[in-house]
């Protein structure tokens, strides 16, 4: 049997995802969290769907992942070295999904958006690994990161305050895409103090993945405009408790290789 719904715990972490085969260990996990009822589907179509092919788009994306992971360490001082193989494994699994391939094929024409989407996925997975999240949550986090700007038009502009809602509407209309991913897309510009957009949600109104993605997205967008990684780093972590959840800022800070950061030559 296959789960026909995604179930999260109180903190928004995924316990079981739609389309996942219900193994004994997953059922045990659900019981541990007092989940007694779950919608199921018989195996068949879903199993065929999960073994989708690795297209040319996915192959190109995985080589971009390898290049960008290296760049994130050497030019930005973020410690991804120990997690490279895990990041690639998660991305490899995520890139098999047809809707991820479709999005990447479309935004391939916009290099800024393409690289931003993949880089935020790398940084998010890296933070998730430090937090010791399981593979299922890491994969969902990566999908959220890749698709978070799917509401962006042809121009990659941070001033487009409608793009989270446009993206949410687009993702929500696709039944293959989990609602969690659509909601994270909607909330990735919402800030801890309620000053974000489009709704001005704050604290308990923002999902865990969106809190994490907000900081990664902010940091990466700043670096597109400013070439000094030290300045950008301090500006980002300086928003602790203002724009970003303090716990997420601590998590982000724990991925910084300070000695590397201080030894990056100024361009």
């Amino acid at each position: 049997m296959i789960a026909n719904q995604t179930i999260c715990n109180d903190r928004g972490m995924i316990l079981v995802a739609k389309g996942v085969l219900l193994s004994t260990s997953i059922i045990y996990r659900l019981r541990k969290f007092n989940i007694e009822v779950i919608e199921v589907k018989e195996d068949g179509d879903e199993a065929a769907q999960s073994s989708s092919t690795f297209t040319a788009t996915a192959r190109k994306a995985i080589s971009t992942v390898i290049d960008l992971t290296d760049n994130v360490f050497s030019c930005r001082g973020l410690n991804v070295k120990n997690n490279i193989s895990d990041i690639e494994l998660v991305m490899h699994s995520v890139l098999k999904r047809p809707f991820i391939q479709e999005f990447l094929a479309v935004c391939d024409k916009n290099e800024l958006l393409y690289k931003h989407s993949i880089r935020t996925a790398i940084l998010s997975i890296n933070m998730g690994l430090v937090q010791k999240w399981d593979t299922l949550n890491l994969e969902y986090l990566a999908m959220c990161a890749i698709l978070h700007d799917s509401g962006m038009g042809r121009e990659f502009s941070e001033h487009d305050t409608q793009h989270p809602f446009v993206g949410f509407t687009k993702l929500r209309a696709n039944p293959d895409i989990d609602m969690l991913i659509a909601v994270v897309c909607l909330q990735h510009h919402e800030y801890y103090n309620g000053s974000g957009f489009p709704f001005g949600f704050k604290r308990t109104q923002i999902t865990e993945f969106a809190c994490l993605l907000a900081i990664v997205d902010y940091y990466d967008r700043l670096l597109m405009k400013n070439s000094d990684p030290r300045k950008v780093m301090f500006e980002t972590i300086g928003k602790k408790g203002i724009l970003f959840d303090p716990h997420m800022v601590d998590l982000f800070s724990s991925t910084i290789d300070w000695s590397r950061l201080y030894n990056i030559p100024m361009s």
Partner: protein
Amino acid sequence: MKFLIVDDSAFMRTQIKQVFSELAYIEFAEAVNGIEALEKHRTFNPDVVILDYIIPAPDGLAVLKILAEIDKKVKIVMITSLGNQNFIYKDCIECGAFAIITKPIARENALKVIKSIRTRVI
């Protein structure tokens, strides 16, 4: 009528179903958090959402704001155990709630909700 009940307490969901099913023929779906509420709204397409104010993120008010934006037809009834706190009432009404009722749900309050929904629908 199709009702979607969103509350993280199984006991409350059962109680709400009992109260409303005694008053009208209603088809129910349930959700325990904000994400599941939005997912069930997509697949079940309810006429009415009975939505608890305090649920795991995104909370009841956030779900209310999103639903009010994406579905102009759905009637959203907020439920709260926080008593008659004016700021909650103000927030909910401003964000598009159809009604607000306090927990535990009294039969007469549920009846009022059903009547006003029918009136507006007709």
